């Protein structure tokens, strides 16, 4: 018995959106048991969407020229029709905020509701990285606090000073996260309450470190001096700056902290792009198809839906002029779909590759995959030979010591495992970003800061390294060195300010003893 479709035209109204949301939500909850935060669906204009774009999806952001730059470039390509806007932006908060654009048809709105409000939303709520690293209930408050604090700093210290500081922090933003340590949940209220105490405390701590009067204990001399500070290398450069940079004012430390906290908030998103998009795409596909099976949407609706859907998961091949890497939507969607297939109709190959999940309950397995993995481990665990074959994945080895490129593995029996490992490694943020850590501070000498870059496969640093060091130099206030090490050999070094040409040491003053 077919039911009456919810709508037949392409125009949307608030009532229709509500009705679609109810039906999609009903199926998501009752049939699939998806757990979500409450949804807050906001209808916005294209211009507002560009605003949201510019501030990297933060609903409330502090003012900075770089957001203006992003806005201008988005606006330009949108006005020229070079680029459509994303249909939605969704924010990991409680309630989960999803933006819908007013230009969209009702079909697109339904797709977006299924994708964002039930797909992404349940991912935010379920995935272990988001659960442990971000606090959805307090992010909006925290962003509000950050915006106000930075605005106040601008009033007190001038826009230029704050802007320079933010520039420097942004340059190091990716090195402002704790990769292994679970951060404290952020809370705007507490931040404000403790801010005053912290300012004083921090300053005292820093002063202590830089105490110039020698302590009685210092008799040990040489041995104490040889000890490095920090004793262990530190991966969170911004944290180190916040706590130990000798010349920063308390308010500057606060700003560093704000940038660091926001970077930390976005860190899980950077680690789960394939999973997050794949999961959301899987669910919009499943949920909308269920609507169709129940007779709630028309054939015309489905045609439009399928067209958008196939656009979203389109993967140009490597030699196409549209190719710009692997489409995370395609990869994620293919893997999730394949997990379901492996559970429901396992082949012999699947039984050999996935003995533990072949033939199991697909919904349980799918939710397990969503909950307890990040991109790297997800691909390593679930990328099946079939998906590798479907996408025709192959690898290319580019070694600058050899004249030709080689193809170590392709989508065949011998290559599946290699491809899977290589692709997983490609999504490991640790491999994608240079491994740079705080190595030493010359506490008793010129106070210079030394960073150490551990090269991976001889990959050198990019050309903007010097500019980043300028920013780091601004934050640290004294000389900054960056050394690149391959295994135990120092291969390169950057200095800020750049070292003068080595001159004869004859003229060096001799210290009187």
């Amino acid at each position, binding site marked *: 018995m077919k039911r009456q479709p919810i709508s037949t035209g392409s125009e949307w109204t608030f009532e229709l959106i509500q009705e679609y949301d109810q039906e999609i939500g009903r199926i998501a909850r009752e049939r699939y048991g998806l757990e979500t935060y409450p949804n807050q669906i906001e209808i916005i*204009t294209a211009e507002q969407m560009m605003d949201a774009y510019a501030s990297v999806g933060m609903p409330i952001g502090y003012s900075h020229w770089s957001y203006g730059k992003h806005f201008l470039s988005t606006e330009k390509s949108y006005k020229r029709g070079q680029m459509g806007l994303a249909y939605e932006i969704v924010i990991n908060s409680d309630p989960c905020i999803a933006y819908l654009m007013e230009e969209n048809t009702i079909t697109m709105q339904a797709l977006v509701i299924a994708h964002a409000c039930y797909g992404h939303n349940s991912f935010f709520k379920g995935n272990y990285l988001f659960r442990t690293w971000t606090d959805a209930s307090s992010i909006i408050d925290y962003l509000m606090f950050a915006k106000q604090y930075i605005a106040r700093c601008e009033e007190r210290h001038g826009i230029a000073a704050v802007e320079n500081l933010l520039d420097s922090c942004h340059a190091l933003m990716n090195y402002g996260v704790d990769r292994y340590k679970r951060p404290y949940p952020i809370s705007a209220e507490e931040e404000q309450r403790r801010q005053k105490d912290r300012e004083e405390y921090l300053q005292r701590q820093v002063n202590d470190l830089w105490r110039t009067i020698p302590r009685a204990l210092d008799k040990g001399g040489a041995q104490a001096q040889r000890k490095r500070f920090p004793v262990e290398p530190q991966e969170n450069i911004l944290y180190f700056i916040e706590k130990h940079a000798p010349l920063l004012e308390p308010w500057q430390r606060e700003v560093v902290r704000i940038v660091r906290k926001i970077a930390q908030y976005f860190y899980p998103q950077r680690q789960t792009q394939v999973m997050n998009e794949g999961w959301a795409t899987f669910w919009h596909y499943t949920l909308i198809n269920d609507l169709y099976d129940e007779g709630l949407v028309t054939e015309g609706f489905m045609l439009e839906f399928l067209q958008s859907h196939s656009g979203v998961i389109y993967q140009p091949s490597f030699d196409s002029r549209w190719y710009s890497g692997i489409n995370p939507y395609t990869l994620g969607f293919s893997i999730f779909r394949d997990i379901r297939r492996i559970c429901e109709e396992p082949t012999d190959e699947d039984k050999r590759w996935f003995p533990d999940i072949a033939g199991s309950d697909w919904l349980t397995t799918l939710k397990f995959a969503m909950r307890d993995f990040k991109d790297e481990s997800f691909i390593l665990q679930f990328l099946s030979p079939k998906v590798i074959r479907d996408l025709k994945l192959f690898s*290319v080895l580019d070694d600058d010591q050899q004249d030709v490129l080689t193809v170590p593995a392709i989508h065949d029996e011998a290559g599946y495992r290699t491809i899977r490992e290589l692709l997983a490694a490609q999504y490991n943020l640790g491999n994608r970003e240079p491994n740079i850590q705080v190595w030493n501070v010359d506490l008793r000498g010129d106070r210079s800061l030394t960073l150490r870059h551990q090269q991976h496969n001889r990959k050198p640093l990019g050309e903007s390294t010097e500019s980043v060091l300028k920013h780091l130099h601004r934050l640290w206030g004294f000389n900054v060195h960056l050394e690149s090490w391959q295994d135990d050999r120092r291969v390169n070094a950057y200095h800020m300010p750049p070292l003068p040409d080595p001159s004869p040491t004859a003229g060096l003053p001799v210290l009187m003893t």
Partner: protein
Amino acid sequence: MSYVIDRRLNGKNKSMVNRQRFLQRYRGHIKKAVEEAVGKRSITDMEHGEQISIPGRDIDEPVLHHGRGGRQTIVHPGNKEFTAGERIPRPDGGGGGQGSGQASNSGEGMDEFVFQITQEEFLDFMFEDLELPNLVKRHLTGTDTFKTVRAGISSEGNPSRINIVRTLRSAHARRIALSGSSRAELKALKAELARLKQEEPDNLNVIQATEQEVERLQARINRVPYLDTFDLKYNLLTKQPNPSSKAVMFCLMDVSGSMTQATKDVAKRFFILLYLFLKRSYDKIEVVFIRHHTSAKEVDEQEFFYSRETGGTIVSSALKMMQEIMAARYPVNEWNIYAAQASDGDNWNDDSPVCRDLLINQIMPFVQYFSYVEITPREHQALWYEYENVHEAFPESFAQQQLVSAADIYPVFRELFQRRMVS
């Protein structure tokens, strides 16, 4: 449970601040682009913005990342012909390695960051640093630059400004509102008391109780104050700036037969630029348009720019008219007077000395600044040389420049109206 919220009406232009910050940061680049654009663009289309491009390397936000080189393995989709272990020659321009590192260096920085600025922003950049010369701010000092005007009623203010009628009206309203229910009760009780006294005069207990109740209510009503601080209303006065430093700009233009179409076009553009500039920079400025051939006529803006006439040329007719208008409408002690004249340099031969005398004796002494642009590629004629005498007599306040094509307008314009120190 989902909430659907319509956000379309609020939060527009959230990125405005960021956009302004961006323009501020790259103003050097933008100004250069604007100046180039003004040289190229026809002045009549000032109605749209401009595309600005900034070299990508100037605008980068640097981050630490891997460069080319080393040993990298990348997985790609869409394999067609490759087999495992195959060796492929390095594609041109792509790939890594030291060889192609060079190639990518030459491409670096070529990516231009291109964006659009609005008309308003365009004009802002164009008019920056320009200002009417020697604008003497005569009456801007002292208290008489502001006049106080009434601006409604406020609940805060100086006791001397109290508005009695409004205050009492609001006190009255408050008393009614606060004691209304008590009054209704009191009225009912009084009626009851009257009835009791009439019908059951012996029921003393009840009568006494009712009387006490009446007293209590009366007291409660009396406790509502007659006038509360809350009621006070004041006349609100605000100060409006009343600058007595006013300026009038005379635009004089030759529209005679000797002016070719192209010359008129250039002249018109000069004035349009001028006029746009005046309209923007000075809210309180009046502009008088005088066009002339053998006789002069005061016209409105539309007619000045867009109607055509032919005939001979007598420049002094315009100067005479200007002098008359100055005398009649713009007394020198109240107005700063500026004038700009555009012509192709042709004049009735006997007329040029008349112009000189008119200027030197009757106009220049009262004018802050007079600029004359001659739009001609040819040799100067009598008028230019007579005007050189004027320039000698008033070197500070008289300027003359020659224009040849539309591209010259902007530099000349800037030259003429460069910011000058008020001496």
